[in-house]
Structure formats: C-alpha cells, structure tokens
C-alpha cells in the first residue's frame, strides 16, 4: 500500500487511528521527557517535524476545501440566475445547480469531516468538473445556434450563453478535487481508503528521478522524508498557482464581455479585465519561478481579492440604482450587475494567496 510504504518514519506510532494532533501532542510530551532525561531526541525531533508537516498540509486541505466550497457556492448562485435568464429552456441547464451544490456541501462539510473530504468531495468535484466541460461545449454550441452563429462572435458571445462561465464553475470542481488529494492531519494510517484515491495521490508523493540517490543513501532518512514532503507540497503549490492563473483568465474574459455590454461606462470596469492577465501571468510564472511565487503572486492575488470586493460594492450599488431599485428586487438582481461575479473574482485572489503560502519543492 503506497501510503503505508511511504511513511515508514512514523511506523513507531502504532496508534494508527489517532489523528495527527494527538500524535503531535504525544510526541511533544515524549520529546520533553527525553530532553529532560538527556536522551537522544533526534528521532523524536524528526517525528515531530513529520507530524507538523501533516498538520500544515491538513490546514491547506481545509482552506482549499473551503475555497472550493465557496467558489462552487458562488458559481452555483450565479448560474442559478444566469440560467434563469435563459429560462431553463433545456433540462440540462439545471445540472450545474445540482453539481455545484454538491461540491459546495461536500467541500464545506469536508472541512470538518475527513470521510466526506475523502469520499463525497472527490466524486462531487469530478461531477462538477465534468459538468463544467459539458457546459462549455453546450455554450459553444449555443453561440453557434444564435442567428449569425460564430460569424458574429462579438455579439453572440456577449449576448449568448457566457462561454467561459461553465469552465469557471468547473474550476470549483478542480479545486475540490485537489483538496481531496491533500492529506489531512486526521488521516488514519494506514488510510484504508480505496485504491483509487491512493493511486491518484501517489503521483504527488513520487519523487523525481534525481532524488533516487538520496533515497538510497539510507543515512539521511529524515532528510529524505523532508525532501519528499517538500516535493509534494511544491507540486500542490504549482497546481494551485496554475489554477489561479486559469481562473483569473476565465474571470477576466467574463468581465470583458459582460462589461462590454455596458460600454465600459465606468472606468473601474476595466479593473478586473486588466488585472486578470497580470494575475494569470503571475500564476503561470509561479509554476516555474520561485521569486514570482513569493512576490508577484501574493501581491496580485491580494489585489484581486480586494478588487473583487470593490466590484461587489459597485455591483450592489448598480443593482440598487437600477430603475425600480429595491421595488423590483428579483428582477434587478437578475438583470443588474451580477453580485456573485466579483466575489468569484475575490475567491480567485484567495486561491492565489493560498498558493503562495504553500512551500515549494525548490
């Protein structure tokens, strides 16, 4: 079993069902006792470190899970009224509602419950991801079926089904999936999970070839396992940075054509459009470059998170200022500036921040 094999260092902890926090406590106590007695604390030191890494990854797991849940929720709310604008004229238009609700519930629940994070979350996430891709195809077809089809791309993409919205929703699923692959501090050892998940996570734990020398030199076992953890986290970090880039780009496209409708009447409408490529560049850069990951990515992500909130303000204000204002609440929420879109933008920012907090392989 991959997981079992990969964690020989904690084999001495026989209480496999205890969660990491408990293990950490016990280890800490043991360490203190050893230090008191002046014994060799090195092994314990190592164990403490491993368990701490566990806790760290667990926290990321929870955060990511939360972000996935929230973005699925926001995306779901958005699609609810976006599809209402299209009158649910096909039954399949209900599917993203169900799928995003699934991820929202699974991911938020998964923050507290390991079992849900391991079982329902990946399934729900895969469904949402699949739904996003299906929706993308349907939206391409939808634009094609508008009068003039793809020969009038500007008009038909702006007025037709929003092309990238399904993919944006799909990123929620993607994040959920990643979250379900991250380890948690309360993971039991051995995991006892079906082989599928282990196979999926195995890649994260498989070190590149150049490290095989390290591995063989049994002397630096502690060092080795530390490196491996770094590699694992680094991979997640890269994936998240990539996801941030993609999500920023999709968000930017959405803003581009929905703000186009309004002829960019307010200069602030350019903000998300101009910011998105920068975040995307930072996210992509962060995959290869550590400096970017540690500077540009958090900076732009923070900017995105803030600009989302600014957008929220303007969108709410715009909704209130519409003819009829609060007298036509449902209508003005549907046809006013979408309230959830800027929040979705913020959540991209948070994703980027999270990515920049993760440690890197290098």
């Amino acid at each position, binding site marked *: 079993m991959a997981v079992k094999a990969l964690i020989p260092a904690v084999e001495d902890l026989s209480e496999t069902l205890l969660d990491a926090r408990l293990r950490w406590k016990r280890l800490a106590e043991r360490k203190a006792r050893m230090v008191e007695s002046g014994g060799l604390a090195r092994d314990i030191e190592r164990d403490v470190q491993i368990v701490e890494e566990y806790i760290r990854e667990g926290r990321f797991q929870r955060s990511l899970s939360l972000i996935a849940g929230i973005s699925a929720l926001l995306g779901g709310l958005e699609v609810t009224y976006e599809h209402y604008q299209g009158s649910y004229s096909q039954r399949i238009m209900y599917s993203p509602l169900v799928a995003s609700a699934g991820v929202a519930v699974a991911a938020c629940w998964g923050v507290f419950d390991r079992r849900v994070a391991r079982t329902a979350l990946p399934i729900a996430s895969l469904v949402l991801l699949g739904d996003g891709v299906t929706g993308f195809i349907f939206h391409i077809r939808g634009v094609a079926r508008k009068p003039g089809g793809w020969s009038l791309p500007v008009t038909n993409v702006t007025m037709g089904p929003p092309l990238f919205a399904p993919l944006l929703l799909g990123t929620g699923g993607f994040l959920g999936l990643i979250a379900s692959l991250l380890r948690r501090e309360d993971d039991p050892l051995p995991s006892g999970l079906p082989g599928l998940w282990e196979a999926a996570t195995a890649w994260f734990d498989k070190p590149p070839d150049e490290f095989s020398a390290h591995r063989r030199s049994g002397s630096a076992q502690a060092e080795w396992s530390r490196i491996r953890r770094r590699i694992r986290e680094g991979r997640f970090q890269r994936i998240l940075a990539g996801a941030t880039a993609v999500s920023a780009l999709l968000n930017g496209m959405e803003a581009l054509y929905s703000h186009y409708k*309004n002829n960019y*009447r307010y200069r602030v409408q350019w903000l998300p459009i101009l910011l998105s490529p920068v975040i995307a560049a930072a996210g992509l850069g962060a995959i290869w470059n550590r400096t970017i990951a540690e500077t540009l990515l958090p900076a732009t992500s923070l900017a995105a998170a803030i600009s989302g909130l600014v957008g929220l303000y303007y969108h709410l204000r715009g909704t209130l200022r519409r003819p009829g204002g609060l007298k036509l609440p449902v209508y003005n929420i549907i046809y006013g500036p979408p309230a959830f879109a800027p929040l979705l933008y913020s959540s991209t920012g948070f994703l980027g921040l999270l990515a920049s907090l993760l440690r890197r392989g290098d």
Partner: protein
Amino acid sequence: MAIGRQRAKEHVAGSPNGNITSQSEQGAQAAQSKQTGPDTTMLPTNPRTGEPLAPRAQPGYYPGFSTLRQQAFWDEATRNVVLERVQHTPPIRFFSPEEAQLMESVCARILPQDDRDEAHIIPIVCRIDERLYAGRIDGYRYEDMPPDGEAHRLGLRAIEAIAQHLYGVAFVELGPGEQERVLATIHDGEPPAAEDIWQRMSVSRYWMLLVQDCIEAYYSHPYAWDEIGFGGPAYPRGYVRLENGLPESWEVNERRYEWRAPSWAISGEYQPMGGGDTAATPGQEGTH
C-alpha cells in the same frame, strides 16, 4: 383657432419675418441657386451666429455613422430590399408632368432637404408615385375620403387653388415662405380656397395622407437613418447595449449642434394639426 388663415393674412399684410421680397423673385432666386450654388436663404442657420449652415452629406448629430456600411451584417432579403431602395429611382407614372412638378415643390416643403448636399437628397415624389401607380393602399379608406390616388390629385389642385387665392401666383412660383404658408392652411385645417374639393375630402385626413406618404419615403431611406442615429436593419446581428442609450460598437455617439429652421419657415414651430383637436386625427400606425 384659425391659425392658418391668420398666418396667411399676416403675411399678405406684411411679412411676419420682415421679408417682403416679392414671392416670385424669391422663387426665381431659389431656382437660380440650383445652378450657381446653394442659396443661403434656404439653409437652416446657427441660432447663435445667425450664419447659414452649409449643406452636408449627412445632417444630424451622428457624424460618421453609416447604416449602409453595416450591410455585410444584414440578411440577404433585407439587403436586397434596402439596396433596391437606395439604388433604384422609379420613373413617374401616376402623376402627370405638371402634377409631378407641383408635387415636387410641395414635398420639398413637407420634408425640406436644403441642408443635404445634392448627392444625398432622398427622393420622395417618385416613391409616392410608385405606390399610387401600383395601387398599393394601407388596407382602408376613410368614409370621407376618395381613394388615395384621387385624393392626391385633388389635394394638388386644392394647393394650387390656395396659392392662387392667397398670392395670385402658381405654387411652384412662390418663395419657400409663401409655399409653407399655403400648406400651413391645410395643416391648420383652415384652407381658404377650393371649397368644392374639401367637400369631397376631409382636410385633416388629406394632410395626414400627404405627410405620411412623405415620411414613408424619407424615413425608410438609410440616409435618414444615419441622420437620426437609428441602427437600421438588425438581423442576424441584434443589439448588445439595450439601456441608457449606449451605442453599439459600430454605432456612434451623439454630437449635437445647434440649428434653427431658415428664417422664412413657419414649420419650425409646432402647431397642432387641425387647430388642436387631436382626437379627430388618430394615429394610423401599429405599435402594440
């Protein structure tokens, strides 16, 4: 209120605009200007400076906007219909040459185009002639009206009679200000002459027939759409920006300029038709 008669009287007594040049002289001036260049008295003016505004290819507040330039985005059937309208001027077949000439000068006052350059004049009379020749009607005739063709013929005779009655000169010989005054008597529902004709048809309905026919010719032309900033045909490409009067990416924003009708014109002010009884002249267009 007998605005029309009053207006005509005022003029005969002494022009309300202090413009007493002999009518026929003015007419000759206008005719002459056709050869020598624009007659500036015919032009609308800048109200601040009083300067005449030179004729333009495209009057209106949307400079550079061209619906015809968008024709690649129209469907074929629409493109054919609109281009046919722009490119083809039907010959006069219903009106006699004299009637046609009179009709020309009448329509030039109903929808004056002196602010348009020669190349961008929208033909009107030939469109009306085409409709009457083909016998196309709007699906009904008022009880108190003869058939459309006959009504137009009678109307022209009446206009001529009013011109003779007020000024003793043929309508086509009159200056534009006098011509407007003749027409205004019909607009106001108080024609001072041709009683026999008005026995046979309703004054206000004839006026509506005349003006509506001119409107249909003028405002169905892409040049007129450009002038008023209307988007023109819109299929398969529809609109994206529906609210707040925002222009599409291919439309242009309004750029207003001030202008006023030429000083001799009374049609620049708005007076209710038929002396104000609008209920007697209900609209005839479908809207909802």
